[in-house]
């Protein structure tokens, strides 16, 4: 008995070591740094000082946190709005077509955030951007730069997250029992009505997990807001980078990181709590 219990845990050792070494220990270090006390030479030492969290509690940072949450929620919604109909129609195509598109979308994931950010910068620029096409068609008179702007940040982040949404929605939508749709139709519901009263509610768990994933993913984006946005479009993650790399203020960066973690954990908790009730 003892042996078998032991051998059961042996399999857990590699993953435990990895999680411990790369997730738990660094997080503890961040926590310790965030409450560290400053030293006379400008560095910091282990201690317990909440001044960095107090600094977060100024309107500037609270506003940034709310902005970050709002932006990420907006991206999650937009990303799902684009990905859901696409994925739904994709599942109605023959398997070969589905495979082709899924491979194509998976390939999209290999593009890094950096690459995407700079590509959009060119795409939205005055000299080489889409504005020139509008001029060519005579829609506008003179080309202009569409970046940096909030729209540019949103467009690039949606572009970045749509493949994730598609891949997260695909299993649920392809497993959706087609007879549910037919049953709804025989009960007098039009195709559109069926979409809203059956297809969406039945796939709700996938929509929610997709939304949460996109939200968290966007919360961690640092390049796109910097490259395509003005400082007022910077998210908490950008500010953390800023504090850590350019201001060498590790304790404050750590405190912001802890806040960011709490923020995303709260959102995930709220979403799962309120979606779990009905599903």
């Amino acid at each position, binding site marked *: 008995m003892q042996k078998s219990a032991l051998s059961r845990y042996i399999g857990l050792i590699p993953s435990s070591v990895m999680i411990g070494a790369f997730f738990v220990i660094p997080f503890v270090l961040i926590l310790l740094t965030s409450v560290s006390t400053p030293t006379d030479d400008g560095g910091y030492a282990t201690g317990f000082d909440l001044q960095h969290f107090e600094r977060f509690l100024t309107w500037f940072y609270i506003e940034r946190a709310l902005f970050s949450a709002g932006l990420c929620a907006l991206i999650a919604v937009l990303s799902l709005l684009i990905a859901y109909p696409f994925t739904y129609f994709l599942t109605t195509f023959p398997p070969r077509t589905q495979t082709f598109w899924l491979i194509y979308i998976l390939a999209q994931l290999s593009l890094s955030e950096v690459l995407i950010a700079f590509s959009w910068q060119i795409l939205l620029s005055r000299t080489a951007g889409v504005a020139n096409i509008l001029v060519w068609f005579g829609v506008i008179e003179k080309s202009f730069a569409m970046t940096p702007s909030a729209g540019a940040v949103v467009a690039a982040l949606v572009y970045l997250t749509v493949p994730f949404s598609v891949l997260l929605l695909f299993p649920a939508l392809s497993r959706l*029992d087609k007879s549910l749709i*037919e*049953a*709804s*139709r*025989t*009960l007098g519901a039009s195709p559109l009505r069926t979409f809203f*009263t*059956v297809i969406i509610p*039945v796939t709700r768990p996938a929509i929610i997990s997709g939304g949460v994933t996109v939200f968290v993913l966007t919360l961690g984006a640092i390049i796109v807001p910097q490259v395509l946005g003005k400082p007022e479009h910077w998210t908490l993650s950008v500010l953390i980078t800023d504090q850590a790399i350019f201001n060498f203020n590790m304790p404050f960066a750590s405190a912001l990181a802890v806040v960011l973690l709490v923020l995303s954990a709260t959102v995930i908790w709220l979403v799962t709590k309120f979606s779990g009730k009905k599903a």
Partner: protein
Amino acid sequence: MPGLSIENVTKKFGTVTAVKDVNLQFNTGEMICFLGPSGCGKTTLLRMIAGLDEPTQGTIRFEDQDLTGVPVHQRNIGMVFQSFALFPHLNVGENISYAMRIRGHSRSECEDRARQLLDMVHLPGLEDRKISQLSGGQRQRVAIARALALNPQVFLLDEPMSALDANLREVMQIELRKLQQELGITTVVVTHDQTEAMTMADQIVVMGKAQVLQTGTPMEIYKTPVDKFVAGFIGTSNLLPAKMSGPDSVHVNGAALNVGGNTGHFAQGDDVLLMTRPEEVFVHHPSDVDVANSVTGTVTFVRDIGATIEILVDCAGHEVISVLTPKDWPNVKVGDQVHVEMPAAACSVLAV
């Protein structure tokens, strides 16, 4: 009154013909079973009545109304799916009143109707249950109630018993038939189970290879199958190769048998099959002489299950089954050379 009619209906999926030139006509209030092996086109035909598939050619009518081309949701039909297709995100009551909610009925009307329908299918008080908490039999009843919520003109069921175990199947067949008769609703059931069709149907449509092979009451089909496929599909049948030897007689293994008038359009000398049903075939002890209308054979198996006794007889390489009641027991054992009597009235002559 003429009810459901299917006129020259053909359905092709690409190059495959699923249903080929089907013509059927039924009266309002009848229970119809489409019976056939899988892939015979029976489900496709049902789906065309529902509007889930459109015929490539032909017309489907109900009474004086042409249904062809009418979208599914505008046809007044109720359908029970093979998997029941209950909505997992709605509870039992909400599933049943779904159609009413779509039509904009008030909450209280929906709840009243759901309660009434649950009483009808003998599941009172289950409206707040989740679908995942129901047993297979309960799911089927809920699916039936849901399909009947708007009093449809036509009630369609696609293999409704296939998800149930054998005992429950029999109970539900009888219950469904009673319910259908009570409501007087034109009903079409798709099944591959002949017992199910025999139990429930006013009219059976036997299908095979995308075509209708025979239409008739269960007894007509059982007594006078049109060919060996139908004979084999409905009940158990004994088929012996024979040759027409006169207007009402055949030769089987050298024995002459009177077959009554059931000779169809065959001429003398034609090769035919002599079909009999096991319960109409009698086995006589080897010592019996001068058994009229009989062939000889060797007993290969005796299965006594109390109420009936089955005797398997090998007649020159062809198996004949006789199902007897104990009072007709000829006291034979395996290996005996017996006389198998096939009374003229029990014989049908079919094409080879």
